[in-house]
């Protein structure tokens, strides 16, 4: 059962707690500071990454449910060699995702802008850049999607094999390693970049994956919300099939059912140049058959005048598959207790929401 929800917002890490009638506002950690990522480890450790406007990215850790925080190290890029072909800065702009290993205590992966993958084996006290991925020749062809520089926003760790990793870059496609990151190869056949010239639409490296999630119960099932579509794989991200959800395939976030790999949720919007709900009516789409069909869920969500957009980390599902929550760019948040069929407003006064984490009691 979810007893806390953490919203990563532009003005702090907002904590809500389960009460008699739903979730109530409890407190804001790092009030006033932009939170770019947060995570909760299998042992209950919390991490919160800040993107301070003037002073760079910072990372804090709590082992007592946010009562006390300790600043720990951030990923640092090595000295940049002289290479005119490398347009990317070698300096951390922000931590974009944090993924604790489910099996190895203390191991934490971080995805950054620019598109680096870092690993810590001591809970964030120290970090090392994954040189193998950073040095793939294709990295020089990655480009920014939404930000000026490419960013690594999704890290899927196989729940039973910590050496098996799948990551996604916006924009740089999907990459896979079977040896804990020592070697990488690009995967994602079938992903289609509508925004590219016709003869480049299926190039693996040009794919602007907005978010990638592997199904916890069967990680061969991988769902992708891409810049221009929804895609699903049943062979561990090697190949993808394009889905056609109504009323739109554009969006950022995806959540995958913890026990049923064929079930996933999305929050679509009008495609890229507008970015608000179709007809300004907010909805969540849910597929329960591996992407063959999608049902639009609207109950409890505003069906007029909505500008709500959900960013890539802004939708989450709990361990049961029944409780979901999402937060939007306009500072609204909703929760569902019935697998996304109906929704209850949690707040309409939040700062813009970047992400959400659900914490089980």
């Amino acid at each position, binding site marked *: 059962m979810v007893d806390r929800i953490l919203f990563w917002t532009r003005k702090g890490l907002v904590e809500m707690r389960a009460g008699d009638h739903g979730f109530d506002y409890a407190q804001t950690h790092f009030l006033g500071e932009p939170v770019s990522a947060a995570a909760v480890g299998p042992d209950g450790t919390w991490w919160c990454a800040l993107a*301070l*406007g*003037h*002073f*760079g990215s910072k990372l804090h850790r709590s082992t007592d449910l946010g009562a006390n925080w300790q600043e720990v190290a951030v990923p640092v*890029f090595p*000295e940049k060699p002289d290479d005119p072909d490398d347009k990317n800065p*070698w*300096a951390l702009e922000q931590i974009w995702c944090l993924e604790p290993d489910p099996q190895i205590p203390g191991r934490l992966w971080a995805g950054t802008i620019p598109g680096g993958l870092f690993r810590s084996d001591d809970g964030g006290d120290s970090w090392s850049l994954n040189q193998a991925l950073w040095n793939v020749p294709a990295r020089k062809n990655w480009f920014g999607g939404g930000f000026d520089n490419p960013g690594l926003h999704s890290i899927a760790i196989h729940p039973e094999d910590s050496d098996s990793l799948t990551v996604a870059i916006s924009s740089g496609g999907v990459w896979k390693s079977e040896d804990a990151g020592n070697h990488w190869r690009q995967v994602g056949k079938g992903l289609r970049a509508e925004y590219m010239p016709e003869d480049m639409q299926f190039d693996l490296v040009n794919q602007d994956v907005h978010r990638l999630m592997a199904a916890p119960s069967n990680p061969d099932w991988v769902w992708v919300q891409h810049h221009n579509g929804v895609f699903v794989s049943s062979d561990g991200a090697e190949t993808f099939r394009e889905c056609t959800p109504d009323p739109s395939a554009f969006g950022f976030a995806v959540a995958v059912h913890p026990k049923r790999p064929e079930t996933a949720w999305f929050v679509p919007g009008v495609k890229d140049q507008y970015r608000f709900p179709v007809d300004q009516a907010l909805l969540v789409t849910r597929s329960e058959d591996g992407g063959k069909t999608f049902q639009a869920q609207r109950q409890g969500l505003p069906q007029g005048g909505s500008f709500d957009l959900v960013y890539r980390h802004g939708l989450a599902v709990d361990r049961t598959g029944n409780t979901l929550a999402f937060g939007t760019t306009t500072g609204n948040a909703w929760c569902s207790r019935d697998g996304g069929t109906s929704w209850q407003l949690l707040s309409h006064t939040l700062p813009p929401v970047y992400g959400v984490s659900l914490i089980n009691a």
Partner: protein
Amino acid sequence: MIKVSFTENLQRHIRCDALDVAPGTLDAVLAQVFERYPPLAGYLLDDQGELRKHVMLAIDQQLVQGAMPHQQVLAAGSRLHIMQALSGG
């Protein structure tokens, strides 16, 4: 001595009281400051050791943003104030 002071905005995040350090090049002065407050370096400098885009230094009445004059000598009696730029953030 060089008088080094910090914007209040920085002190929201990290402890750094004003201090006096020995004269020397800007690099040498900053090295003394970072020796006293080790975590401060990450707040002022990026991964490549350059001044963060939105951090500014005032060496006496000379404002420094972007490229740092690493070897500029700060003589006894000079002031170094570390502040945020008004851009960004």
